[in-house]
């Protein structure tokens, strides 16, 4: 079985303040995860703001250097001790999708320029092969190349532009896609389109995802595994359905209990006479 994601003693300490009055924040505290599978998987990392979930994503994306420990993705060490993967090879195996697609694409540049750049510089394709790859990846997220070509980010809705950024991430055929809050900026009515797209890409294109979110309901819907983080520590990890329906840790229970569901009211609401 392939190691899809393994972290060994991953730590990240942020130092704040001046030389005399410094403060440390342990954003990641000894993170040990091990997920092995032959099939692609969707792993969710859930937690509140400040829990360290984005720091974990950024460490795996090499955007920040871990203080100690290492991370392995698809049998290759990608961050920390023993990391030797060249940048292009790294980018071809792990790709990000960020929260706000309007910040990911410049307003002054057509979005297909980003797609071409990924095809030529990361995937190493030239000429027509690059255009084919762009076309194919746009088709796999349900968009036509002709509709995207030459357009700027402000000509798209949030959901469409997020699909363009997913298409961009797919071009180099990465093994793992790290999606940091990919649907929190998208309207509730279209959120499930993106979520279902992740499921489809897992099943058909055999991509694994690390889905970082504070929304436990969508995490339950798509994930195979879930890691619950609080204050830099993974408090609970396991198969998604088991963790979310039979939580063991008090923090997971508190989190699940605090979600405003549309099934059961916290307290009865009287109806008002008309």
């Amino acid at each position, binding site marked *: 079985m392939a190691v899809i994601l393994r972290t060994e003693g991953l730590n990240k300490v942020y130092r704040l303040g001046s030389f005399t009055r410094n403060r440390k924040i342990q954003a990641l505290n000894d993170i040990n995860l091990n997920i092995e599978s032959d099939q692609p998987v969707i792993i969710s990392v859930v937690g509140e703001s400040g829990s360290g979930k984005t720091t974990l994503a950024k460490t795996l994306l090499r955007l920040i250097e871990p203080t100690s420990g290492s991370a392995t993705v698809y049998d290759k060490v990608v961050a920390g001790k023993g990391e030797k993967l060249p940048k292009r090879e790294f980018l071809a195996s792990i790709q990000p999708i960020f929260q706000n697609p309007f910040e990911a694409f410049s307003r002054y540049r057509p979005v297909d320029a980003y797609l071409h750049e990924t095809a030529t510089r990361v995937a190493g394709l030239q000429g027509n092969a690059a255009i084919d790859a762009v076309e194919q990846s746009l088709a796999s997220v349900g968009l036509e190349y002709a509709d995207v070509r030459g357009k700027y980010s402000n000509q798209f809705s949030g959901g469409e532009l997020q699909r363009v950024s997913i298409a961009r991430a797919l071009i180099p055929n990465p093994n793992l896609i790290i999606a940091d809050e990919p649907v929190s900026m998208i*309207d509730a009515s*279209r959120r499930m389109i993106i979520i*279902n797209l992740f499921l489809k890409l897992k099943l058909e294109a055999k991509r694994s995802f690390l889905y970082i979110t504070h929304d436990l309901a969508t995490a339950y*819907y798509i994930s195979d595994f879930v890691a619950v983080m609080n204050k830099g520590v993974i408090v609970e990890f396991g198969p998604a359905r088991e963790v979310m329906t039979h939580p063991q840790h008090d923090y997971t229970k508190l*989190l*699940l209990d605090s979600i*405003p569901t549309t099934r059961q009211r*916290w307290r009865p*609401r009287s109806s008002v006479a*008309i």
Partner: protein
Amino acid sequence: MIRLNNVVVTYRTSRGSINAVDGVSLEIPDGCVVGIAGESGCGKSTLMKLIYGDVTSPMSLSSGSIDYGFENDKGAPITSANIREQWFKRISYIPQSSMNSLNPVARVGTQFIDFPGSDPDKKRVMEKVRGYIGKLGLPPETLDAYPHQLSGGMRQRVMIALATFFQPELILADEPTTALDVVVQKEILLLLMDLQEQMKNTILIVSHDMGVHYQTTQRMLIMYAAKAAEYGDSEKIFRDPLHPYTRMLISSLPAIGDDRARQGISGTPPSLWGQLTGCRFAARCPLATDKCRAEEPAFIEHRPGQFAACHYAGTEITQTGNGQWQ
């Protein structure tokens, strides 16, 4: 009872005029918690601003009126023309971002004193404030702190304390918990519900989270492309909605413990810049017919207390296995 009579709110820009709220009529009973939901740009925040009376250029109330159902000291009825006199006293506002709403260079206590209150004795006011914030679960030292020294949840509690101190008849809350974590969100919502049960004020809540609406509201208004799509009892809206948009929106929500497939609603709302004919949801609606595309449905009462703007209100729609609505 607050009555909105066919209100139209227009924004004037260099590109021309746009109606962000386009003919909404509504009756809100006293002491009712009403949730307003809809996609971004559907006009829900504009409607809140209008009801609050914060109508400044380029925004204007181009037709229609609001009756608030209460009178000022001189006995004149309050309408959108003079609602500003009642700010904080009988109508108050809880904004989304408490950090941007509190004065960063003034202590929290001072911000209570700055209020347009009737009592000139500051010490007596401070005593009252101290007693009041205690009831909201804030320690008395909060009044001596600057906003940045408090956590997000505490700041939002301060905002709620400011908004409810004079026991206003009407409270408008625009995404009051969006910036907060779920655990804190639950505390804040339960606090707001407690206060409402004691004071019996009318609360309007805008939220994009349907779960927040289900937990807190008694009635719901669903807006779509500047129009009211559906209005009625929350329980009915969630269990048996009339409008296909409401139905699709509610059945798209995933839930823990429920493994059924969910579908989003593809497509986008129409641009409000163009000439709009027929039902505004027709392009995304599986029930749409030529009638829908030609003739705008009226917002009428289909069941007692349940209003909707749809020619086929109440028609069942289901999802097939491959994710198509029919």
